[in-house]
């Protein structure tokens, strides 16, 4: 059975169905049902996945697409792709449920009503593309998804966003297109120079040997991914886009779309251009560390909830990129797990912030105060999401941040130490935000806040359950991720560290 094609086809067909039904309510319900079907299908697929199999890309499907240029419709998943697809398909139903009223024009200070059906159809189209981008095993197909994903997101920000939505949407699009064009040039150059007559990723590994060529091609790919992720200093589009996007779209933008950037670095930069990756490692690590500290400091100074969350993400993307380029087993696995965990913790922050904004009609932190007293469940869940964002042990982000830091420390101790100061800054931005919004005397404007309703609880509960479960028991995810990361690193051929004092009976546990 063509599992991955089915996974993509279901939401696309679903989107068509959603745009055809009569009532808005039915459209929402249908969209939710479709996304749940995709979730179940992915669960079945994941159950059949064998992390230790010799076959690297499982559930592979390869068909010729443009035979003349060796372009294929090639899909397949390894452990890294699988967990990111899982992240996407878990988030989509949650986002659909959370966005139930986003296009209705209800809520305090809400933008006017717009087409509900289009919004949910776009969400489903986006879901298909997110699956496609992670499943692509053909570099050209990856590029196509990489660019095509922009379109639904562009419309979700530009049509359904806040007051500055047009500015934000255009800025988002221009930045992404700029990066995309560089990548396109590099993709084509890769094809031409490799002279393999194919865009299939596995066949292109090791095809470019010349160091100078590697560096140029690396630059093309890397800049595209650095804009996408985004890494400092390519980040300024993200706060605008995330702040203007409706909360649900912001979750998918920051939680999944941005991960395509860091995923691309791990998958394509490292494996296609290993020598160039090693050459540029110092540069990338410096950019990452700057981003970690810089994003956190700027986050502390924000006055808008959504912009604050966006800046925390810039800091977190720094951790992920550092983990990718540290090229150790721990850091690589940590970075991959971080991509997943960040999706859940930042996703819940954005969604709960969305619930607050829906009630109050403002995203200014100063417009809140003492919410805990009137809406304790809302405040409590917001705190848990925040604590995950500051990597509290026992919550999922800790595992990944710890692995990234310890893995980086193995061979780059100084950057790792500087990055670790990020844990202090994270406590400042999260807890200060919580203090300003949730504690103190209850502000007049929030006195009548209702607590989370049933729908909202169903949105938040699965996210928090995942955050806590992975926090205490990350093994199932790591068992899938580790072999894939090891495979990647073996392509790059890096020496793993050995402890200074090795146990005579053999190091490690």
């Amino acid at each position: 059975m063509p599992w991955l094609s089915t996974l993509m086809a279901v939401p696309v067909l679903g989107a068509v169905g959603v745009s055809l039904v009569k009532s808005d309510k039915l459209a929402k319900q249908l969209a939710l049902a479709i996304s749940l079907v995709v979730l179940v299908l992915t669960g079945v697929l994941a159950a059949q996945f064998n992390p230790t199999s010799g076959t690297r890309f499982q559930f592979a499907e390869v068909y010729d697409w443009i035979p003349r240029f060796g372009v294929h419709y090639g899909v397949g998943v390894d452990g890294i792709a699988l967990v990111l697809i899982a992240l996407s398909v878990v988030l989509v139903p949650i986002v659909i449920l959370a966005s139930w009223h986003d296009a209705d024009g209800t809520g305090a200070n809400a933008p006017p009503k717009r087409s509900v059906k289009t919004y949910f159809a776009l969400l489903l189209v986006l879901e298909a593309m997110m699956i496609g981008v992670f499943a692509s095993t053909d570099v050209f197909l990856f590029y196509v998804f990489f660019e095509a994903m922009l379109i639904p997101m562009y419309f979700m920000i530009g049509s359904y966003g806040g007051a500055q939505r047009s500015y934000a949407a255009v800025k988002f699009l221009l930045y992404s297109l700029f990066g995309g064009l560089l990548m396109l040039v590099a993709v084509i150059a890769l094809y031409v120079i490799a002279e393999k007559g194919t865009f299939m990723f596995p066949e292109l590994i090791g095809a470019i040997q010349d160091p100078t060529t590697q560096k140029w091609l690396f630059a093309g790919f890397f800049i595209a991914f650095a804009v996408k992720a985004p890494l400092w200093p390519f980040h300024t589009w993200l706060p605008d886009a995330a702040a203007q996007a409706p909360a649900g779209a912001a979750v998918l933008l920051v939680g999944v779309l941005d991960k395509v950037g860091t995923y691309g670095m791990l998958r394509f930069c490292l494996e296609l251009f290993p020598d160039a990756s090693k050459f540029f490692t110092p540069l990338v690590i410096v950019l990452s560390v700057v981003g970690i500290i810089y994003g956190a400091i700027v986050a502390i100074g924000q006055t808008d909830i959504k912009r604050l969350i966006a800046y925390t993400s810039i800091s977190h993307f720094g951790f992920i990129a550092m983990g990718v380029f540290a090229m150790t087993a721990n850091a690589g696995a940590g970075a991959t797990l971080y991509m997943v965990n960040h999706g859940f913790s930042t996703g819940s922050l954005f969604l709960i912030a969305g619930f607050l904004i829906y009630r109050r009609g403002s995203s200014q932190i100063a417009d809140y105060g003492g919410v805990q007293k009137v809406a304790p469940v809302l405040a409590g869940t917001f705190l848990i999401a925040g604590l995950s964002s500051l990597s509290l042990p026992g919550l999922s982000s800790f595992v990944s941040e710890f692995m990234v830091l310890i893995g980086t420390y193995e061979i780059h101790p100084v950057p790792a130490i500087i990055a670790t100061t990020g844990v202090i800054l994270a406590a400042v931005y999260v807890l200060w935000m919580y203090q300003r919004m949730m504690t103190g005397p209850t502000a007049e404007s929030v006195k009548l806040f209702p607590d989370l309703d049933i729908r909202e609880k169903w949105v938040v509960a699965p996210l928090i359950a995942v955050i806590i479960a992975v926090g205490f028991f990350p093994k199932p995810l790591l068992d899938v991720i580790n072999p894939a990361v090891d495979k990647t690193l073996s392509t790059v051929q890096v020496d793993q560290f050995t402890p200074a004092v090795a146990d005579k009976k053999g190091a490690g546990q």
Partner: protein
Amino acid sequence: MQSPVEIIPHSSGVVGVSWLMIVLPLLGAAILLLSGRRTDRWGHFLGVAMVLASFVVAVASFVELLGLPEDQRRMGVALYQFIPGMADMGLLIDPLSISFALLITGVGSLIHIYSIGYMSHDPDRRRFFAYLNLFVAAMLLLVLADNYVALFIGWEGVGLASYLLIGFWQHKPSAAAAAKKAFIVNRVGDFGLLIAIFTIWTTFGSVAFAKVFPLAGEASNGTMTAVGLLLLLGACGKSAQLPLQSWLLDAMEGPTPVSALIHAATMVTAGVYLIVRSGAFFEVAPTAQLVVTIVGVATLLAGAIIGSAKDDIKKGLAGSTMSQIGYMMLAAGIGPAGYAFAIAHLITHGFFKANLFLGAGSVMHGMNDEVDMRRYGGLFPVMRITAITFIIGYLAIIGFPLLSGYFTKDGIIETAMEHNQILGWLAVLGAGLTGFYMSRMVFMTFFGKKRWADDAHPHESPAVMTVPLILLSIGSIFLGAFLILGNRFMKFLAPAVGLPEELPVFHFGSTAGLATLALVAVGAVFAWFRYGAADVPEVAPRGSFLTTFARRDLYGDALNETLLMRPGQWLTRFAVFFDNRGVDGLVNGLAATIGGTSGRLRRIQTGYVRSYALSILFGAAVVVGALLYVGNM
């Protein structure tokens, strides 16, 4: 020196299910938090039951441990793989960890029971018990963990519980601010602990105690010194030692049972635990040990000075806690000769300080939550049980002969004296200050003239609060003699931390002991003249330079503000400005120079479709051009 014994894997008996100690209170917290208002009526009983059950498991594990020969008294209990290849969840049941477990669940149970009464009027009592349960679970994980990563989970878990409980009355801005401050200052310490763990991992390729401690001697001295100092940084944060002490005084914003349990008896002693547990590293890093003793002595004096000037009874006790933990740090830095005294003092302090804090809470309970001792006075006749138990705690902490504090503190002073005369005499001086500030507290509260507010009607607290006080004061009387005489506790701890080459002999009337007693007496008499015999003004007089210095917490906050907060605020403002104008401005400007897009971005309503189309067209042109080129090759 006799070394600790090897850790033996173990999976049967009570110890095999010792994880229940952690899981039961964790379950309690989960039920209480998730069940909502339904459980408001009986939630506190569930909270108490879970801690009591945990105490029963701890006692049973302790009995099982005692039943084993000494060289088998270190049992490793494997639980599950946490981060495969790096860290597993597992517990270590040995004399050190079980001592802590008994203290945490024993004193913890009493404080839970007391809280039923203390929090009876609070609408959020259920949430309070949930957080207390969460704290007990995290603290037990901290002390029972068999590796540094699991320890760290407990370490930050207690930090979370502390944050939640300091800010329990978070509608008060001061409580919310204090909670945040505690967490952030602790994170500075956690930064040190994290780097220490990283270094341990890269040095030994493991984070498990059983793997790393036997290899400590093979690592370079520089590495071990670094690890020691980094662990100390972590310990300073958690245990409110200089220079990370500033959060503890503010932490008194939390309800008093919290101050007793977390900020006196258990959590703040975690730093001492960390250093004693990591003894194998410190013993090969004498420089780090020296720094530990210096930090300990500096803090024991600073805490005593602060405690001498506070009129807020809880802050006075908080200063005292800093000071007493300073004693423990001093002993922990000395090495195997000091470990047993550090932990013994930690345990007796857990009893008498919980006793004092709960006594203070009982006074506040009867005085409309008044904390200013200048509005107390003459309370002895109206709350006799509280007063008598408080005075027992007081006598214990100042080291009145034969009470608990006498044995454990004297043990530390004698050991310090043998180790280094300067440190020893400074510790004696600290004991004198303790005599002063604690006597001052007792005189101002229970004796002298009544200085009550007009609406104050002091009364004795209910039995649910006084019975824990009585039990704690019994411990405050006898525990010290029981632990110290005949080196009972030192021998018990030996399988975990080793023994010194020479066993100390406790003798009454040594020079240091007599000097200590004399100074304590001087302090107490001085306090009597100023606060017992003389009238205490209801409004604090201005006082000397030294008084102001002490009242302002030795300018610790002012220092933090000048050195860290203000520059931090400027940096933040600059970074935000730079990000809006600098980076973004540069990119927008660059775009303007290249394609005039900036103008379009500003005129947001028009133009974006054109630029979008233009870009797509450009992209398409590149694709077509390239493909044609390839096609023609």
